[in-house]
């Protein structure tokens, strides 16, 4: 059963950018793609737990600020060393200008 949580206003995130969101002691990263779609992943890189929200969004890719590891944030797929483990993704929906994530 999903647990939809209001994470932020849709306008809080610039196009092709990421912001942090904390809920219930857990860190998430919320993304807005260049074509205005929204995505969410765990907040930390799977390599050394660096916060992804300080990284750089390039198209569908988030680059971790710690060691430049890259993930496809739409699928969570790790795109090569030094990240070898996919990052967990979460379903997202936007309603009434609010971004909700399903934290499961």
């Amino acid at each position, binding site marked *: 059963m999903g647990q939809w949580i209001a994470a932020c206003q849709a306008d809080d995130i610039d196009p092709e*950018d990421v912001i942090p969101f904390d809920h219930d002691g857990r860190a998430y990263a919320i993304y807005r793609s260049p074509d205005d779609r929204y995505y969410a992943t765990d907040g930390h890189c799977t390599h*050394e737990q660096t916060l992804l929200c300080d990284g750089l969004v390039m198209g569908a890719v988030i*680059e971790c600020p*710690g*060691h430049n590891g890259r993930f496809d944030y739409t699928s969570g797929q790790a795109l090569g*060393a030094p990240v070898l483990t996919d990052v967990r993704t979460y379903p997202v929906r936007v309603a009434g200008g609010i971004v909700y994530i399903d934290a499961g």
Partner: protein
Amino acid sequence: MGRERLQRYSLAGPENQAAVAAGLAGGAWFRSAVPRQRLKELMRRSDGPAIRDTAIWIGLLAVFAGLGIAWWGSWWAVPFFLAYGVLYGSSSDSRWHEAGHGTVFATRWLDQGLYQLASFMIMRDPTTWRWSHARHHTDTLIVGRDPEIAAMRPARLARILANFAGLADVPAAFRLMLVHAAGRLTADEADYVPGPERHKVYRTARIDLAIYGVTIGLAIGFRSWLPVVLIGGPRLYGAFLLQVYGLTQHAGLGENVLDHRLNTRTVQMCVVNRFLYWNMNYHVEHHMFPMVPCFRLAELHEEIKHDCAPPYPSLWAAWREIIPAVLRQLRDQDYFVRRELVAGAAPFHEPGPANDGRGRPPAASAAA
């Protein structure tokens, strides 16, 4: 005492766990506050500058190699091969470094291609060194954790001097190639190269050994040194600038600190040196924000200089500090250069006694 101290740098020794237990490994490092919008501008990738510089670099390599071959057998070949050697044996280091971070090109395959080429030229396995360098950034100058500490305390002076002609690094590189080609890693490498990545190390070593085997075979077949002067040899006769630049990064500065302003130098250089070293002279900036491409580091320097010590005005100024510091550390391993921040800078981030820069064992620091 000196030998015992050097053993502490092993990643396979007890110092590694001591650093983890003391919170030095993967620690929270100081970062200057740079507004997110400005940082995004600085991090933005672009192919143009890297394609331009790489075309110039490869073009110069080709021109100097051609002129050296044309004058082969006469003393006129010497200056051309000297220039070729520096571009090959020294500048490949900065190309390896920048492409390894994946920040110089916007196009991924260009980055990967340059990384593979530069890794071959500088004689570093692209996989082990990618992981080694990631560790260097996580645990910069943390004793027992950082595999890339060039000037230990006491410094291995003979090794440092020999490396001005690649005489320590090149034999070590070939020893490692043989180890890797046999399907093995060293104990230190096993600490930071994950299992799924190791097959790449073994494969690359076999390819590299085959290339060097063909090169030596051609030299023997043609009874000429020319193939070796062109491939592999420049890592010896052209390596001196690699040392001149590279040792300015951290030598003589604090160990076991969690603030790059205490263990890293930024050195002002002329445009030629900045091309050869690909702006790695902005090293505090690079360590604090490794996602910023080398072409934007001068701008980043302007953003954070209010928080740092003044940059060294020249290579000479840096070396005038490094030489006496490293010599003093031969007899006093607690000594390190502690710089003064500019007025108004955020204070040094020194959360505990272990972070005072002396690099003492964490347990001893806690008791002090």
